[in-house]
């Protein structure tokens, strides 16, 4: 490792010790934030309307007087009511999924843990489908009580139950068996999907249309209302999770050692599981199953800035948001005027990536 000389908070120049990647990580986070802003702006202006990024920016900062507006009324609707919600929702979901992946990997002490692969998304999906199909009948009291929050909450509960079962099955005395975790994930996914299948069988035509659209995974239904219901859940989880970064770092040495270092391991695990379930549940509720973001993003970042969760979690949020906005932009422009569900794009890129990790780690990961 190279020695970095950086200015400390006191203004004095402190020699950074070898093997300390924090300066590099902070720089990476800064660059990722800039990248996110650029990609978001690009996505706002990519598509059939020919408003430029500059126009959009100038319009955003123009006064309240209608005469100052740079964009036409039609372009304003396209950008502010159609594209902007998609960009915001894409950013939230991408960040939520990537951070959830990183947290799960820290919790299971394994780089292959991902909400989609181990069945958490399927569990959340079951919760969401229950509300879509049974919301008017069996679950009517639940949906009337909670209104628009019913869907994200049901997805959260589905994800929570799945994660808890998974953790119970796969972890013995603080050690998680990768094989058990992946196999339990397959079983839980299959079970959740079978139950989802039963519900779909019971659905009427109108519900069926909602379901099909939702199942493929898409941001096309993004509205400010949806952001209003699912957004806060994701935001709370996103803001809370970095506070457990130190604990997750200690957990890399095993549960007993984390405890010796002063970490309340049991509490950390419950909060992490709840945070992941909330973030994944909320994103599944609004956009369906979007896979592989949670495994690709943290893995790429660990290669460059290292596994320190204090930097990995915020960097994952930024890169996850950027990649999902980018994937969504591709999904709505590549076969324009039609749309390709975004889940197809993330799986097409993520699937081979997952195989690549398996090949690289062959012999290192103890299955």
């Amino acid at each position, binding site marked *: 490792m190279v020695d970095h000389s950086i200015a400390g908070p006191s203004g004095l120049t*402190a020699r950074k*010790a070898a093997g300390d990647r924090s300066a590099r990580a902070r720089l990476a986070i800064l660059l990722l934030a800039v990248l996110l802003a650029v990609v978001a702006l690009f996505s706002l202006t990519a598509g059939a309307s020919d408003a430029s990024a500059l126009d959009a920016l100038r319009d955003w900062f123009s006064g309240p007087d209608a005469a100052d507006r740079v964009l036409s009324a039609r372009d304003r609707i396209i950008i502010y009511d159609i594209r902007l919600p998609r960009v915001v929702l894409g950013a939230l979901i991408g960040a939520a999924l990537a951070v959830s992946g990183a947290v799960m990997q820290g919790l299971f002490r394994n780089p292959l843990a991902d909400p989609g692969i181990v069945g958490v998304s399927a569990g959340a999906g079951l919760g969401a489908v229950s509300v879509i199909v049974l919301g008017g009948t069996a679950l009517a009291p639940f949906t009337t009580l909670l209104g628009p929050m019913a869907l994200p909450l049901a997805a959260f509960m589905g994800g929570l139950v799945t994660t808890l079962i998974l953790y119970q099955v796969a972890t013995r005395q603080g050690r998680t068996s990768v094989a058990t975790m992946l196999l339990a994930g397959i079983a839980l996914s299959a079970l959740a999907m079978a139950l989802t299948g039963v519900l779909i069988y019971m659905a009427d035509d109108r519900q069926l249309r909602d379901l099909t659209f939702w199942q493929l995974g898409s941001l096309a239904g993004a509205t400010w209302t949806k952001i209003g219901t699912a957004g806060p859940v994701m935001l709370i989880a996103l803001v809370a999770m970095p506070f457990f970064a130190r604990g997750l770092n200690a957990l890399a040495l095993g549960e007993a050692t984390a*405890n*010796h*270092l*002063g970490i309340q391991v049991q509490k950390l695990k419950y909060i992490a599981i709840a945070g992941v379930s909330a973030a994944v549940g909320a994103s599944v509720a609004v956009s369906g199953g979007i896979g592989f973001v949670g495994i690709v993003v943290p893995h790429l970042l*660990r290669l460059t800035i290292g*596994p*320190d969760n204090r930097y990995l979690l915020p960097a994952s949020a930024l890169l996850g948001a950027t990649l999902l906005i980018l994937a969504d932009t591709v999904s709505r422009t590549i076969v324009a005027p039609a749309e390709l569900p975004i889940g197809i794009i993330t799986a097409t890129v993520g699937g081979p990536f997952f195989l690549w990790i398996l090949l690289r780690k062959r012999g290192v990961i103890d299955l």
Partner: protein
Amino acid sequence: MIEARDVSVKLGGKRIVSGVDFEACPGEIAAIVGPNGSGKTTFLKALSGDFGYDGSVTINSREVSAMRPVEAAGMRAVLPQATSLAFPFTVQEIVRLGLIGGRSGALAGESERLPERALAKVDLDGFAGRFYQELSGGEQQRVQLARVLCQVWAPVLDGRPRYLFLDEPVSSLDIKHQLIIMDIARDFAKRGGGVVTILHDLNLTAMYADRIFVMHRGSLAAAGAPAAVLSDSLIEKVFDCRMRVGVLPSGDVPFVLPQSVST
């Protein structure tokens, strides 16, 4: 000090440790010896708060089972037998994890440099930038010891002694590094801290320990100063092989010479 009274530990319905009395005083190295499976590690894990126990274990008069992790982390640091690591951390990043609790006791401004100083102590100068997983077993063990040293850098904090719990700290080390590590333990004790260590090498135990606890089938077979505890008959009974205990001409440190098991 550390006091254990009538400590028993059950794991999965099986009694692994039964009725052990134990004491470790600041300024001393207390060594636990005994054959494989005699309950040494289980007992140390009870002291560390990993396992529930019957009886009583106190560190500086505080019951271990009633302490929050952060309070216990301020009083003792634990070196486990082996540590598996989930992600590619550098040596520097691992050692720095010892500072998580924020009670190293280092002077203000000193803690930034602690990882480097701790690495120098365990003879790993220049290893800070290396990846932990690429090191040999013995080097990894010394990195973990450097992390443990960072956690309780000052052997005494706020007037209270602190402790090192070391489970076979030298088992994977060459002879030079065995001595370096045991010297670190002795230095920690000399400066007012206490050390509890599990050892397999009886000669190293005789050289460094102030008090020896011999465990046999989950119970205490003997306890006391090396010269009092290390006798032909006890060692032969506990370890089930023939030994000759002598005394070095230079002084009163006993040495143990194993004979063949088969003859």
